[in-house]
């Protein structure tokens, strides 16, 4: 379970990169609503881009992207619904890293929670990476060095919030981390009694 125990740590990865260079891909496209009725946490990979995948020309159906573990995507990737199922589906499908010029805020947080690495890269640099893998190709993502290298030797650096990077590198259980602050939480509760009581309604 993301956020809890068992988040995978990520250091570096060399793998095939797939390109899905469309802007504003919403989480409804990643996992359509009918699959949100499941109460399981696993097995969402087969539903990833369910409707789009029916089109033989859809990018992820290309043979050169088979086995891709890195996804290069357009701006505002993962906008819309908060469904964490979208991040679960990308991870279950096999992706470990998503690179985009920007991400939907909630999707970004959800991805970090489960150890799916979201990397923000300015559009011009991302375009160059995309050109290097169109038709099939590998990239090497190094989270410690904060670099992405193509197979021709080109290297680009990326920025990432230090705390987010720390969580991803170590696969942190963020709930356990918060629970270490138990004394402070209890002190806060004593000082600011809650304004509502749902159980008394």
């Amino acid at each position: 379970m993301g956020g809890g125990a068992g988040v995978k740590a990520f250091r570096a990865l060399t793998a095939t990169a797939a390109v899905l260079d469309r802007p504003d891909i919403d989480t409804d496209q990643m996992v359509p609503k009918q699959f949100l009725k499941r109460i399981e946490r696993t097995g969402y990979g087969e539903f990833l881009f369910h409707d789009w995948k029916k089109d033989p020309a859809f990018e992820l159906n290309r043979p050169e992207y088979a086995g891709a573990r890195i996804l290069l995507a357009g701006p505002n990737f993962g906008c819309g619904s908060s469904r964490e199922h979208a991040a679960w589906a990308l991870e279950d499908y096999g992706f470990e890293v998503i690179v985009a010029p920007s991400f939907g805020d909630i999707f970004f947080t959800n991805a970090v929670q489960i150890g799916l690495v979201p990397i923000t890269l300015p559009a011009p640099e991302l375009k160059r990476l995309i050109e290097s893998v169109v038709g099939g190709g590998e990239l090497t993502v190094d989270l410690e060095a904060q670099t992405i290298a193509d197979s021709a030797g080109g290297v680009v650096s990326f920025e990432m919030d230090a705390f987010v990077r720390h969580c991803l590198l170590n696969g942190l259980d963020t709930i356990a981390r918060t629970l270490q602050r138990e004394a402070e939480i209890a002190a806060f509760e004593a000082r600011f009694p809650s304004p509502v009581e749902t159980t008394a309604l």
Partner: protein
Amino acid sequence: MVHEDPGEPALLYVDLHLIHEVTTPQAFDGLRLSGRGVRRPDLTIATMDHNVPTTEGPIHDPLARAQLDALRANCAEFGVPLYATGSGREGIVHVIGPELGLTQPGMTIVCGDSHTSTHGAFGALAFGVGTSEVEHVLATQCLPRPRPKTMRILYTGDLPFGVTPKDVILGTIGKVGVDGGVGHVLEYAGEAIRALSMEGRMTICNMSIEAGARAGMVAPDETTFEYLENRPAAPRGADWERALERWRELSTDADAVFDREVEIDVAELEPQITWGTNPGMVAPVGGVVPDPADVADDDERAALERALSYMALEPGTQLVDIPLDRVFIGSCTNSRIEDLRAAAAVVAGRRVHPRVRAMVVPGSAGVKLQAEKEGLDHVFEQAGFEWRRAGCSMCIGMNPDVLGPGERCASTTNRNFEGRQGRGGRTHLVSPPMAAAAAIAGHFVDVREWAGVRA
């Protein structure tokens, strides 16, 4: 705020945690797996909204039934109060929070739903989270959060006749873009916002996420306090007076500096209609479907072509000439009593176009009851609308209320994404009066031109 270290996200205390059936089963499983409990069931409240049927009778979908059963079992196991279907207090989570007076100024409110931004209308910091963070809040009542950037949208001028808060927010998203608010919390400010009811402010804050912002807020004022007074969870007596004192201090400082400022003159706004596959693809009612040939940027042009292909629209088509198959009035954006009154005023004495199937889904059991007291159900039914039970319904289409492939719908909801209301369905987002008028005409109309209509 419970704790803050430099270089790390602040640990926020969550004053109210709203939960529903769809984004919580895996969070409760996570608690069981790690042997953790719910820290504050008394600050947590559950309802059934996303996949409940809006017709009477049993739930036929076994997956939906299993998910609702799971919520019931989880709430019982962990002591979380649940407003189940039939309790009289059920409804869309973002409608019942304010309705019960649970949503109050200055609170931090989270929910596993992106439209949690709705509660920002009360001057609360309210935002949507994923299931991992639902588990985090259940276990700790806290959430680590980095400090967001701030953006103020200042609305000047007076809202013209026939132009609603829905048009204000659609026009705003059209201007700033669907990623304009990414990384920011929005403040909606200005005289035009002050003049709005709480319902109108909720409509605007609701769609903050459609502009990319996780949260949007309006500073609380007398309108806020008047709305809250005497609601079931609102403070009473001396507590109420103390709360008012506290709430009156929650306005933004006059000299506050924002990371970004945008100004919009609402006097210039017209009723809005989306023509594409995200809420930023929007135009005034007098406009036309845009032409990809006019777009210079390759990526933007490709996105526009894809949207028009999905929507089956030709460039240059007048928006008012677009024929409709379905009309949906409902959702956490536009299913409150004022929305239903505005729509009913348009349909009163008229008939739904024979080609159109039209439906009204009140936001909560409470809204439904109030509407029925006012006779709005009869107005809708006599006009040929279906009058349904409360829920999210065709905004997300997890229950049997869905569009068929190719069906075109005028909808008061918040998302026109591909397949949102049903696979292959085509959604146009509009205000309640615009949706109501479209149901009668069978195509979009400029509701301002309908004589006798007080939109």
